[in-house]
């Protein structure tokens, strides 16, 4: 039962922090809370027996992606957003949306009995090894394609973010 309590604990952290991400006006604070959310989720992954996923979650998400966000925030020197920056129509949208979401969850909750029973002790003994085996045998081609994709993204982001060499249309 300890695991379940740990799960609730980290889930609470994740939900609160992610609420902070979308509600705080300071983008750096939002980014930091995003890190907290990600780390809490990593802890959940450990609880779910996926150590490797937890590690790359922290390594890639917290260690690289959010750092990028922070960099951009710093580069553009985005301070506090002014008050009243929520999109005009969105109070209603938000309400409706949350209601809809809650409804879906409730319905989902009701229909949960149909889920197949879990495989007990399903977690692999050597999680990293198994993930590695799957990645490099069954998913080799997707893996290679993915690496190609990330190379393309690298080049594309350089091209997009580069200072334009032609005169701007407004200038």
């Amino acid at each position: 039962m300890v695991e379940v309590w740990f799960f609730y604990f980290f889930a609470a952290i994740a939900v609160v922090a992610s609420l902070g991400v979308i509600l705080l006006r300071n983008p750096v604070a939002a980014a930091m809370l995003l890190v907290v959310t990600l780390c809490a989720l990593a802890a959940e992954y450990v609880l779910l027996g996926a150590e490797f996923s937890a590690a790359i979650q922290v390594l890639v998400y917290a260690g690289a992606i959010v750092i990028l966000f922070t960099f951009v925030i710093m580069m553009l020197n985005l301070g506090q957003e002014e008050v009243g920056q929520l999109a005009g129509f969105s109070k209603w949208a938000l309400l409706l949306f949350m209601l809809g979401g809650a409804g879906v969850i409730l319905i989902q909750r009701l229909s949960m009995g149909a889920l197949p029973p879990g495989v007990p002790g399903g977690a692999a003994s050597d999680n990293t090894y198994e993930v590695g085996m799957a990645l490099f045998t069954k998913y080799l081609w997707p893996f290679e394609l993915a690496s190609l994709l990330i190379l393309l993204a690298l080049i594309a982001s350089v091209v997009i973010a580069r200072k334009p060499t032609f005169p701007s249309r407004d200038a």
Partner: protein
Amino acid sequence: MMQLPVLDETAVQIIATIVKFLVVLVGVLHIPPVMIWVERRVPALMQRRRGPNRVGFFKWRLWGLLQTLADAVKLIFKEESVPGSAYKGFFHLAPLIGLLPTLLFVSAIPFGPAIEIGGWKIPLSVIELDIGLLFILAVTGVGVYGVTLAGWASNGKFSLLGSLRASAQMISYEIPLGLSLIPLVLIYGSLNLQQLILAQSSVWKWGIFLSPISFLIFLICMFAETNRAPFDLSEGESELVAGFHTEYGSAKFALFFLGEYVAMFALSCLCSVLFFGGWQIPFVAHEQLVSLTGSVNIAALCGVMALLLKAAFFMWLYVWVRWTLPRFRYDQLMKIGWKFLLPLGLANVCVTALVLAALA
């Protein structure tokens, strides 16, 4: 051995972990004073001067060892000043955020073989993980936030530039660092640090002999990751005053110092673990040591001493290099990272994999 009936395995491990964490924390806190003393005495020796040697009790000078104590006291009691334009919360948090990952890093290091207390085997690392190496990489990745936030929260030009430099540098060198570890994982077949150490059972199986290029890359990245000379661009006192901690004083400044030295210590330990057999004493097998001393625990203590000695060598190397080599230019730094270390690391991984495949 007497069995304590009230405690089950989990409880014992939790208690042991807490104890180990406290021990490590206290031990780590002692590193900066000693290191600061070393940093002042060693260059003095190198430059044929005396260095600080006066502070002491009456006539026991202790080679000036107490100088740093005096410095620490001074730092802690100094008035704190916070820039008016700073983002206050992050300004205060940043040193702690910077310190936390390094502490986690240290806690993943196995300082010795497991000891036995009351019949329970207690591993000598705060947290023993199957994916220790990945954990360490993840933690170093998060380590950038302290620096970044400190520079940003100070809201000053020098701080921001220093922090941008430092974080770009740390991110850049994380990649070759990670690449330099992959050959070792390939050779020893584990991500568990204790397993890695045990695999280096004899001197000739040490990482430095089996993968010397990895060692070279790791060594360079070690200096870059800690922002130490010759990669101390982020501080670059001649251009940026003090980089990301320009605005920091008093205890928070001390915390940054602490973070830097703990990071150095952690990386030194990791280097010893990966390339120099960890806690294993050269030419003496652990079993021999156990039979020689007659106790598992004493043998483990010897192992701990061995690891600390090896780490001490690298700490000294940090100081040595700092007072020997001039600082790189920023573009040179990036060039080394991306155009030299990265391709070298990739080639190293490929060659190691090919050799292993050929041998298998």
